[in-house]
């Protein structure tokens, strides 16, 4: 594990994060004392066998899953310390975190433009301005020509890029991706990963992506390996 460039600012800081589901005989320890620091401009991968806790870790960073113990800072702000320190976690997500899913998860009743623009309007941006920025993002991701297409009419790769545009809508500092390339062929997977790397550098964002995909390993700055909820470099 190579250490991040000293100049860069840490965006995700975890220490002693554990998570267990259920109690007694049904208890599952999904995460065990996980500590990690991810800095602006980095693209890191989470690897590990199925059930090793990758998604759980990603969801903890996303403030969707509450850790059982530990401490977490996002963008320099203490968010969790044995308990949530912020009540409006959704607002935090809206402003700081972008998501890219394995399946694209676009809203089926909005066209590509509005899927992207919606996230912006939720922060109070006007619809016209939001749409213009959505077009810029779609152009940037090379799906500008599909701006009026409904999700059902998009190919897997197009939908994935629209979803990435949505993840970028509010210029998040942290982008979380759960197997973003699983549904794509190797060429498209490469394009998506190139894009994420470029984003990390251009927007000084931290990108955390869960992946099983061997073909994209070389595009990751760092790799965290999980086994039974424990991190080993």
């Amino acid at each position: 594990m190579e250490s991040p460039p000293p100049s860069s600012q840490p965006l995700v800081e975890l220490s002693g994060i554990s998570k267990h589901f259920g109690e007694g005989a049904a208890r599952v320890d999904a995460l065990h004392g996980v500590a990690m620091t991810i800095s602006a401009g980095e693209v890191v991968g989470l690897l590990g066998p199925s059930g090793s806790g990758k998604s759980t870790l990603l969801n903890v960073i996303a403030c969707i899953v509450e850790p059982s113990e530990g401490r977490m800072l996002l963008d320099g702000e203490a968010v969790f310390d044995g308990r949530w320190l912020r009540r409006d976690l959704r607002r935090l997500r809206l402003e700081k975190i972008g998501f890219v899913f394995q399946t694209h998860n676009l809203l089926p009743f909005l066209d590509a433009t509005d899927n992207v623009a919606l996230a912006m309007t939720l922060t109070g941006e006007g619809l016209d301005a939001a749409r213009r920025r959505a077009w810029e993002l779609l152009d940037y991701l090379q799906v500008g020509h599909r701006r009026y297409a409904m999700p059902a009419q998009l190919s897997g790769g197009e939908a994935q890029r629209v979803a990435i545009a949505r993840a970028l809508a509010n210029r998040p500092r942290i982008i979380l991706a759960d197997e973003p390339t699983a549904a794509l062929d190797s060429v498209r997977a490469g394009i998506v990963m190139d894009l994420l790397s470029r984003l990390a550098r251009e927007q000084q964002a931290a990108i955390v992506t869960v992946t099983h995909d061997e073909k994209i390993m070389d595009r990751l700055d760092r790799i965290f390996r999980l086994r039974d909820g424990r991190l080993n470099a």
Partner: protein
Amino acid sequence: MNLAFREIRHKLGRFVLTCIGLSLLLGVVVTMAGIYRGQTADALALVRSIGADAWVVEAETHGPFAEASRIPGDTREMIARINGVLAAGSITIQTIQADHGSRRLRLQVVGFEPGRPGGPARIATGREITRGHYELIADVQTGLTPGETLRLGRRTFTVVGLTRGSVTLSGDSIVYTTLRDAQELQFEVSAPASRREVARGAQHTATDIINAVILRISPNVPVDSVADDVRRWKHLSVLTQAEQETILTTTVIERARRQLGLFMGVLTLVSAVIIALIVYTLTMDKLREIATLKLIGAPDRTIIGLIVQQALMMGVIGFVFGASLVFAAKDWFPRRVVLEPTDLVTLFGIVVIVCLLASSLGVRLAMRVEPGRALVG
């Protein structure tokens, strides 16, 4: 951007079908209210069409419409002499059936004395009864036209004029004829009974029985003083026009409100359950989208708005469409349907409340959705 509207547009067919179903249901609710108002309006039209200030009827009855009232034929002459009575007219009322072409009409025959109170207040087409015998003024609802003839009992009557809106409490059309013809008809129809009365030595034969005397009273004399004078005859009682109106409308209201109120209540409940179920399934269908919204950071108000607005759109469109349907079709109903703006506004308010309550089920479901659900493939 309005997510509720956008989602509906995406699945327009299903939404339209839902709204059509709902509008039929709500249309029935509106019709019930309209029929109820129609009955009240009919009842008032009936008493008002005669244009009386007071009604003299048999003692201790609420005649002649709500209850049977039988008084001697010479009552009118006695009453006419009371100070303050400007005019008095005898009327008879009886229900009979008559065949008109292939249809069987149920009619209420009002016998009145031409030139005295008791006849139709307004004739829409045709003329008043002028000849002494066998002329009729009928309500348009009968389908009769001036010049046509109609057999009542053993006589053939000629229709000379038409009224509009003369309908009894049970929805039968009213026809007017002279008192003499009406009494003759009454005697014919109930001949055996009245003959038996005569045989028993009854004072008044059936031909000399009337049902009420209609009074016009001088504006300078209080109705109460006339009423007191009339009540000195122990076999008579007096109802003012206002009392008569209250009797008829409350008679109607008591029966109709309970019946129609029950139906309306049940149907509103059914609509509520249906709207709740629709909203619930609509929410079930988009749990993943709701999870996605939560994940990208949409506040609860966005999600609640999505569900509640759809429920409201459904209810409002259903109601407006249903009410318009009834409005367009109301003249084809067998009973009079009167759509009062206040009733429509009240029902609309109820529908809105029902929608809000019904959507709470969907909202609770949506609030329980975990944002992480959007992440599972």
